[in-house]
């Protein structure tokens, strides 16, 4: 690689770093209705920025003790999405176990399990850079970039930059999980309103809403919403119907078939 290219890449990396930091500092994420589309664009951007042959995001499924490919970019691409990977195996498993990022080369020579897994997908990387996706102290997944083009391995700067990408991806995943919880809570609330069972214990809804508000600033409004549910249920039939319609429209908008940003 020429030093000119080197400095261009360095500049690009610096600009990207600034962009990521400013997005984060302003407390925004670029989350739209479709977090998969966002994650797709994050891994594709990561692959291009890092000069990598492939990139992917794997999420932890604690019930099945596996990591599952959520999005993937590169030669094995879409074929990998949905593929499950034991939680205690290979480089990704290592990242989940330790919570530490790692860059390693000569995967095809040394890491037995990764090589076998890679061969089964038809794509054997030579170098891997992997970093954890963290929600607070909890590991929710792993972000990987594979096969550094023009170099035998990924460096420390790549590792630092991927850490920033991973923070954005983790925020997006975390928020999409919150939205899913809210949807569930609203739908549950609506169902109970529809059945007009005023004696029904609402502690379950409250607990979901409390969780959501605890985990993410900006959610306390939901508790107010829960309180309003109680008041609404005591109103007349027409007011109640109006409320159900309004909430129904909201719930519909969030459903995959009606996403505005798909």
């Amino acid at each position: 690689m020429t030093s000119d290219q080197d400095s261009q890449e360095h500049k690009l990396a610096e600009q990207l770093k600034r962009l990521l930091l400013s997005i984060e500092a302003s407390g925004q994420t670029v989350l739209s209705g479709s977090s998969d589309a966002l994650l797709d664009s994050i891994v594709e951007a990561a692959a291009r920025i890092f000069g990598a042959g492939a990139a992917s995001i794997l999420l932890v499924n604690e019930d099945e003790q596996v990591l599952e490919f959520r999005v993937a970019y590169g030669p094995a691409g879409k074929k990998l999405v949905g593929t499950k990977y034991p939680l205690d195996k290979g480089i990704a498993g290592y990242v989940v176990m330790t919570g530490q990022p790692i860059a390693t080369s000569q995967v095809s020579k040394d890491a037995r399990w990764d090589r076998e897994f890679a061969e089964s997908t038809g794509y054997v990387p030579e170098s891997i850079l992997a970093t954890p996706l963290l929600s607070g102290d909890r590991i929710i997944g792993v972000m990987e970039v594979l096969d550094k083009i023009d170099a035998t391995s990924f460096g420390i700067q790549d590792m630092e930059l991927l850490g920033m990408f991973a923070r954005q991806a983790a925020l997006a995943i975390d928020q999409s999980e919150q939205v899913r919880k809210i949807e569930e809570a609203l739908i549950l609330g609506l169902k109970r309103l529809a059945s007009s069972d005023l004696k029904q214990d609402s502690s379950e809804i409250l607990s979901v809403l409390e969780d959501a508000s605890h985990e993410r600033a900006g959610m306390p409004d939901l508790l107010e919403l829960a309180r309003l549910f109680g008041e609404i249920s005591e109103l007349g039939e027409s007011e109640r119907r109006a409320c159900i319609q309004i909430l129904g429209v909201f719930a519909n908008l969030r459903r995959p078939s009606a996403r505005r940003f798909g």
Partner: protein
Amino acid sequence: MAEEELRPAWSQSFTPEAIQQLDAVGPFAKITPAWAWGRSTGKGLRVAVVDSGIEHDHPAVGRSVKGGVIVEYDSRAKDYYRIRPDDKPVDVSGHGTACAGIIHSIAPEAEIYSVRVLGRNMSGRAIQFAAGLDWAIEHDIQVVNLSLSTSLEEFFGIFHDLADQAYFKSMNLVSAVNNIPEPSYPSLYSSVISVAAHDGHDPFTYYYNPKPPVEFGAPGIDVEVAWNQKQYLVCTGNSFAAPHIAGITTLIRAKHPELTPFQVKTVLMACAANTHRRAN
């Protein structure tokens, strides 16, 4: 929004063009690597590797691993963790074995203890980590390798207190800084020896950075390290730089048991490759 100033990446202090040349004068000029650790093997020292365990029978650690403990997160336990003995430790990933292998290669006669705080837990890692460090403080360990850290603000005080306890017990904590440039604990406390990676490969060539918080740079880029299941991998990360300094610290302390933690740091600085000894 005002544009946030970018912090330099921790490891950037140790690129060839960034390394600053330093002078050692007066009595400090007399401190040489030969005096500091020449002929030392680390004999008599107890070193803890707080990590993912250690594969005790990996050829890279010889017979140095003398035991250890497993610290597990338990949401029902009083302090949210429990500790059980681990006489013949294993490694759940390879990370701890990599660190222990580096320490053993530098200080072959030091005893190494595995404090396993990482494992199949998606949360509670910082609690395990703190409990593991606490165990080391209470069990007559002189050098602790910490190739992990937490960025959780609420653990700042807990780790600070542990780092102070270790310091007053004359222990040296050697900690890898986080691989992304954000605050992480306990690596950034002044009593801790913090380490980032440089791209050299000689285990005894390390640098001092006069602009803390990261004070030392040691090999950590494309280094061959031991891995679980008797394997070896070529890895990059600050994680692999810290055990180089932990190993050298062990040599120094074994040869000069009278030194205090701050004197050890002074000796390390005096023997750094970018420190030049000048006759007054």
